[in-house]
């Protein structure tokens, strides 16, 4: 059997391994964004998380996607990026 040559049908995007950011040494005083994707009861999870993170000294800011059915609007992503050091995104189902 001779070797067959074919065309790559993919987007040819095999990305270089994305490195994880280092774990923050502390969350005290850090700006933490909590993103609610608008799924039912996601807020319940985030409320509790806000309470726990606040007890540990984090500064919390809440954000919300208009709908879980679409990617977050560009403007929202930029706002979160500008205003936060860390992000927690809540999925719920």
């Amino acid at each position, binding site marked *: *059997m*001779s*070797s*067959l*040559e*074919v*065309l*790559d*049908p*993919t*987007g*040819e*995007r095999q990305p270089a391994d994305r490195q994880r950011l280092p774990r923050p040494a502390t969350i005290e005083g850090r700006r933490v964004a909590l993103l609610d994707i608008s799924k039912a009861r996601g807020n319940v999870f985030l409320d509790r998380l806000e309470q726990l993170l606040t007890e540990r000294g984090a500064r919390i800011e809440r954000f919300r996607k*208009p*709908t*879980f*059915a*679409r*990617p977050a609007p560009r403007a929202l992503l930029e706002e979160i990026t500008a205003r936060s050091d860390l992000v927690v995104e809540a999925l719920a*189902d």
Partner: protein
Amino acid sequence: MAAELPDGLVAFVKRDCPTCVMVAPVLAALQGTVPLTVFTQDDPSFPPGVDAIDDTELEVSYRQGIEIVPTLLKVENGEVVDQLQGWLRGQWENLTGVAPLGVGLPEHRAGCGSRSIEPGLAERLAARYDGGRLASRRVTFGAEEDEFEAAYARGWSDGLPVVPPTPERVLRMLAGTSRAPSEVVALVPPDLVPCTVEKVAANAVLAGCRPEYLPVVLTALEGACTDEFNMHGLLATTYFSGPVLIVNGPIAREIGMNSGVNVLGQGNRANSTIGRALQLVVRNVGGGRPDGVDRATLGSPGKLGFCFAEREVDSPWEPLHVELGYRAEQSTVTLFAGQGPAPIVDQLSRTPESLIRSFAACLDATPHPNLALGFDAIVVVPPDHARIFRDAGWSKARMREELNRLLTRRGRERARGRGDMDEGLPDSLAEADIPKFREGGLYFVHAGGNAGMFSGILSSWVNPNGGGSNPVTVEIRK
């Protein structure tokens, strides 16, 4: 890149062609008289007595687009200014300026097919001499690797076997469109990768398409990648749906699509592979994979590919694309984020008043009896049911009006808790009259086999009322 041809007369011949053998003495006589170059396709010693150039690799024949032998070209300053095929004495005398020619030969004899267009060989020549216009990365399978297993191993398949996209096959597929291989068709979600015609062709090969299906696949991809259709959301949702493609207009018949028996089932190559090709583009180019960005809880079998044609020829109604503002002679593909069919069985109704109530009762529960306005539906109506509406002169508008009347209820009748079910409309809508379907959210398509008192409901993912998908129709250009 056309090879430079010498000025003067240029002939293409092969020994395997009786007409070429017949005119061989004519060529031998001409070679001493006028500037003549002869390319021979199969035997360098043919024609006898002629100093022929060996074109057994067929590069010159391929690049000149020779289809018949003998072909005689008249070349001035590298350009072909006149040509003929086969043997016709008067034509040969005019083109060569030499007469009489071929004394003793019959007046006329047709030529034979050029070796460069033989089936199978033609694609190999295209890959060898035109492969440079393909930009995709080349992947070489291992010599001992099974080609089908190799495609699975690279993650290119939806679970069914795929056809390996060799350069020959992709070039053959590209012949199905006039668009350039490098043209970007769409940004394909979820990775928003610019997808070229060539990449679509490679995935159409994987899916098993014929070249004439490619324009439908390209158009479907354009429609899927609109903001309105929201392919990203459709891919990512936990809901059942995938893109459902409905093809209208002359192209459906031209490429042999099924609009009749078993129309939503398996077994017709065009229906099965066009829908699959779109899904493979989303998977392979866009990076959208089950258990990756695709988070469907259950999914539906139509996510392998869901494509069919409307049965326009004997429909009681104007076809879907005409209803949407296109002309009957235009060809379109309509994308609908849905799944199905869910059955409507009514074998006893003989009046539209009765049958429409059966439609209403079945649609009422889609996707839940206490929900309304958030989901669209297409009712696929086969001839046996359509006839009842036809005989009574019911238009699509009339059917929609009746269904709207039958399915509009006070909000409290679909409220949370209604029927002891917690799912339902919010109490804020309790006193409002709520139609089941939004305006423009209910469609009828005529399709299916001749026998059977059934219709089928294709219900949608959430429509734009819920941030989901709007149906999109795009004209197909070849």
